[in-house]
């Protein structure tokens, strides 16, 4: 148990502290990320917030050369692309995140199944530095 509440914004407060949180249904045992007040599997409200191990594996990815406004502000463009993907956590659920330390010149060589570990990346948004979820090779 940790002291995070079930509301959405706590996910980002935890991220600033370097923690990856979600929820576990105490009735059916399923994990969710981000945390849910109502279990999407069995509709139970008997839920607790959990801290994930941060270990996972890559299940899908892309290397983006045409970024949206905020990623462009963070310095990404066609000459400086970035990798984003979907990570399956060791505990089961999946989450979208930036994937660091990949060979961006050879996207075809990035391997689905790569073991990853959670980290954060600081990006500036509207003049404020914020921590964003990222993963890197384990």
């Amino acid at each position: 148990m940790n002291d995070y509440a079930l509301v959405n914004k706590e996910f980002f407060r935890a991220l600033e502290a370097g923690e990856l949180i979600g929820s576990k249904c105490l009735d059916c045992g399923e994990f969710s990320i981000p945390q849910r007040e109502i279990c999407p599997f069995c509709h139970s409200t008997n839920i607790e917030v959990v801290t994930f191990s941060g270990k996972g594996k890559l299940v899908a990815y892309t290397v983006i050369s045409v970024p949206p406004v905020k990623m462009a502000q963070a310095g990404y463009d066609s000459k400086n692309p970035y990798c984003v993907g979907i990570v399956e956590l060791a505990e089961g659920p999946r989450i979208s995140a930036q994937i660091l330390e990949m060979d961006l010149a050879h996207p075809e060589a990035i391997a689905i199944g790569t073991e990853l570990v959670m980290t954060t990346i600081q990006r500036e948004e509207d003049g404020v530095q914020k921590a964003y979820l990222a993963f890197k090779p384990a």
Partner: protein
Amino acid sequence: MSKSKWSRGVAVVGAGMSRFGAFPDKTSRDLFVEAFKDLNKNMDKALDPKKIEAFYLGNFSSDQFEKQAHLAPILASWLGLSPISAVRVEDACASGGVAIRQAALAIASGEYDVVLVGGLEKMTDLRISEVTEALGTAADTQFEIPAGFTFPGFYAAMATAYLHEYGADRNAFFDVAIKNHKNGALNDKAQFEQTIEQIMEDKKARAVQKGRPEPTWKTDLEFLQDPKGNPNVAWPMTLFDCSPVSDGAAMALLVSEDLAKQFSHHPIYLIGSGQASDGALPERATLSSIPAAEKAGKQAYEMAGLTPDDIDLAEVHDCFTVAEIMASEDLGFFPRGEGWKAAMEGKTARDGEHPINTSGGLKAKGHPVGASGVGQVVEIWKQLNGLAGERQLPNAPKIGLTHNVGGSGQTCVVNIFERRD
């Protein structure tokens, strides 16, 4: 056997569209009027607008694209239809297909007999990064977009899952683009009324004109494989894997089945319809297919009492080339993992066993997002009535299907139409 629970049947008695493209000199109202005039021109019996009882508009985000919300009553007024009920329907890029379904349900309920459905989006007034941002609001803006995802990125991620799961050849995606541009080249409403070969030859000619060395591409496939001709957007989706940013409007007139012949000598009938929803991409058990599309398709087939092999042609949501391949499997035209081979073998071409996107699809015809689902119905209406000109399918097709997806698959709506002799 049909298993329709609708109280009465619904027919499409007219359809029309503006040209799709980039029109800096036109506003959305101009495009809407253009579509209405095209619908009137296409109808074989003159339409009395006073007979229209309700209006449904498929529109994703005029708020963001034009800083204009509450668009349905404005457009109804612009056509002189006030004070009829005017409703805007928003389900991202599926807004048009959902508007068709909502209008049909309103007729099936008995509330209205005659309903106009419009689809509209005016996207090109914003810069490309702003368009990307606006489209991104159709995804989960708390947990997906901050990770760095874009819409090409979502479909690219699904493409990597598909390539990995089935050992598919990435060139299959290019074959979808080549095929859809070949169809679009025969559609005078298409944004790209050009084959990829023609686009390649234009680029070569421009290079020579500017005194640069002529690129050495010999075939359209070579051109697509060269990042200098076809740059990366979100690997493995390249520029020519993506549908364009577009302006456009499309329209269909729906009436109750018993009134159909009063409005047209050649109505087509909406005999199957289904719709399903889903969570964001990471919440799904599979990333190599779109579960909501499979569910919506099954509902529509069951209502119509048909199977995938009964479908003579389909307009599917090819916002990105991989999406067409997944759709061809989600709709049951090909087994799982076989769609990419079918695309490479020409099975989805106009002369193939399952013709897909004879209009050019979103890829070549253009993708003004709220209009796309209604634009699909325009093509089915033309093909079933033998009005598709040079791209007309032979052998008098009888059954057509539309498949319209919102977001990365959070919404999918499938409608099936039938011509009766």
